[in-house]
């Protein structure tokens, strides 16, 4: 949380207020969508875990950071000297490596730090998660140094101009990966057997167990998927900003806000919330004249407003509190 290198939001927030031309509007729209897509990927992890375990995985942002580092190391190791088709393939292999590592890490964390606390008070897993988050970010600082690292671009990133709107190849790549991931996840959760078991577990864990679903296994899979998505987001962020040990904190918090805005526990809600938050940040700074210095407050104000007005989120179902 130290004032370090910029967070991913800062890449896409344009400081100067704009003179309302259509092109500029689309420019902000494009930037907002890219930023929002990244938030959405991260928000999915929060929302899936919350849906099943009813707790906030504070360490999610740090899992993102670890995935980002692993991806970066792998990419540096396997990419050649020159840019070419291979570097693009290497980019995806590196992304996969980060995802796998983070998935394993997420499962390990669940097993060690959260599973023993299933039946404890509500406060216990939260505190444990904060502890894990602190351990991860400081371990990273210790092992990999606090200096931020830059990912070598896999391909030329000179922007393409489309009727005055500048779009970078990175943005296209980010959006493409985000869309593929979201569609894949949605299909997986809605259509596959495991997805069905996940939905059942999140609906009612005890009944799901009675139906023969191994809830512990489903919870582990949920953590693995959420962490892999976070790692993807982390590696995509590495295209735009540098990688450093506390990179996941602020981005993770905002993604959590996105999950709440969309309706926590709801997968489509997390996607919608992420995109909305991305748009809100870009347009908030550009059009609504919110001072650039207060850009990080937008998300928290949005959180407080949504919780006061519609606490179940945009797509969430209102839950009656039972005695």
């Amino acid at each position, binding site marked *: 949380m130290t004032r370090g290198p910029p967070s991913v939001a800062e890449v896409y927030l344009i400081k100067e207020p704009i003179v309302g031309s259509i092109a500029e509007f689309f420019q902000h729209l494009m930037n907002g969508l890219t930023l929002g897509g990244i938030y959405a990927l991260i928000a999915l992890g929060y929302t899936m875990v919350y849906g099943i375990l009813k707790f906030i995985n504070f360490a999610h942002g740090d899992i993102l950071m670890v995935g980002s580092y692993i991806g970066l190391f792998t990419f540096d190791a396997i990419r050649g000297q020159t840019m070419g088709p291979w570097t693009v393939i290497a980019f995806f292999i590196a992304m996969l490596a980060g995802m796998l590592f983070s998935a394993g890490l997420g499962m390990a964390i669940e097993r060690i730090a959260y599973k023993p606390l299933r039946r404890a008070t509500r406060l216990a897993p939260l*505190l444990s998660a904060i502890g894990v988050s602190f351990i991860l970010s400081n371990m990273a600082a*210790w092992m990999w140094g606090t200096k931020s690292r830059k990912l070598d671009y896999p391909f030329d990133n000179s922007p393409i101009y489309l009727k005055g709107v500048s779009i970078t190849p990175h943005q296209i790549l980010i959006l493409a990966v985000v869309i593929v991931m979201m569609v894949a996840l949605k299909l997986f959760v809605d259509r596959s057997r495991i997805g069905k078991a996940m939905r059942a577990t999140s609906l009612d864990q005890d009944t799901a167990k009675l139906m023969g679903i191994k809830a512990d296994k489903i919870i582990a899979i949920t953590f693995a998927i959420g962490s892999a998505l976070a790692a993807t987001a982390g590696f995509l962020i590495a295209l735009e900003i540098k990688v450093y040990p506390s990179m996941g904190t602020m981005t993770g918090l905002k993604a959590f806000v996105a999950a709440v805005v969309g309706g926590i526990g709801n997968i489509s809600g997390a996607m919608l919330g992420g995109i909305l938050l991305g748009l809100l940040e870009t347009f908030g700074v550009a059009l609504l004249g919110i001072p650039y210095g207060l850009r990080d407050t937008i998300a928290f104000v949005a*959180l*407080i407003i949504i919780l006061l007005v519609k606490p179940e989120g945009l797509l969430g179902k209102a839950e009656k509190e039972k005695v």
Partner: protein
Amino acid sequence: MFNFILLILIYTAIFALMAIGQNLITGYVGLLSLTQAGFFAIGSYVTAILSVTYGWNFWLTVPMAALISSFFGLLIGLPTLRLKGDYLAIATLGFGEIVRNILNNWDSLTNGPMGIQRIPMISLFGIQISPYKKWGFLVLVWIFVLVAYFLFDRLAKSRLGRALEAIREDEIAASSMGINVTRYKVWAFILGAAVAGVAGSLQAEFILSVTPGAFTFMVSIMVLCMVVLGGMGNFKAVILGAFIIQFISYFPQLVGLSNVIPPQFKQILFGLILVVMMIWRPQGILGREKRSAPRRLFRSGGDV
């Protein structure tokens, strides 16, 4: 060496004040608030600005620090305390960051990242209590801790404390007993903020300068660790927790190994403390304070 121990004891006291506030909020009401660093910062800056820019006496800035911190406690508490517990953690964490953001950016008042230097020292009846003479300062900060301990311990055993504990045990049951849940939560928040503000004042006087960099999330985590380690719901325990955490913080310097032990060592240890305590000893080292049985006129027939 000896100076180091005095330093640890002074910091123990400053952080114990914050931990006492956190204990009321987390230990008694069961709310996870991550904002003590924010109130600590506000208290520090109130003392710094009032004494440097406006030439106030330290003893007048302390109540102001408490007052302004608790005002912000009210401000952040009113909307967020209606939220379910988990959201509160995020909202308060956001608040702490916003405070630091504002301190960093509001140059005309806070002098930005440079902070405020040359804060006048405390004087009491013409005697200057300088941070360079650690004994005097040590006595001063511990008097503050004792007063806070006494006040909060009494308070926690009063009607307010019982209401707070009822809310922790079961919010719905508490509200059906006629306890105004939001109001009591906000009160706990205000009191916790006030004592953190006072801690901030003392910190400003001890360092004689304030910078936004001193009030990171790390501070809130340390305070949380103190409460968890000592024992939630026990004011003596959190003071013990404060000492242990400060001792760990300065351990590398104390044994002269600060070049060998990496600076992240203590943070990793704090994280481990949170995880390990939650799994193996969630009640903390000393555990929750047992309520002494009320004096009874008649013997009751066994436990109900």
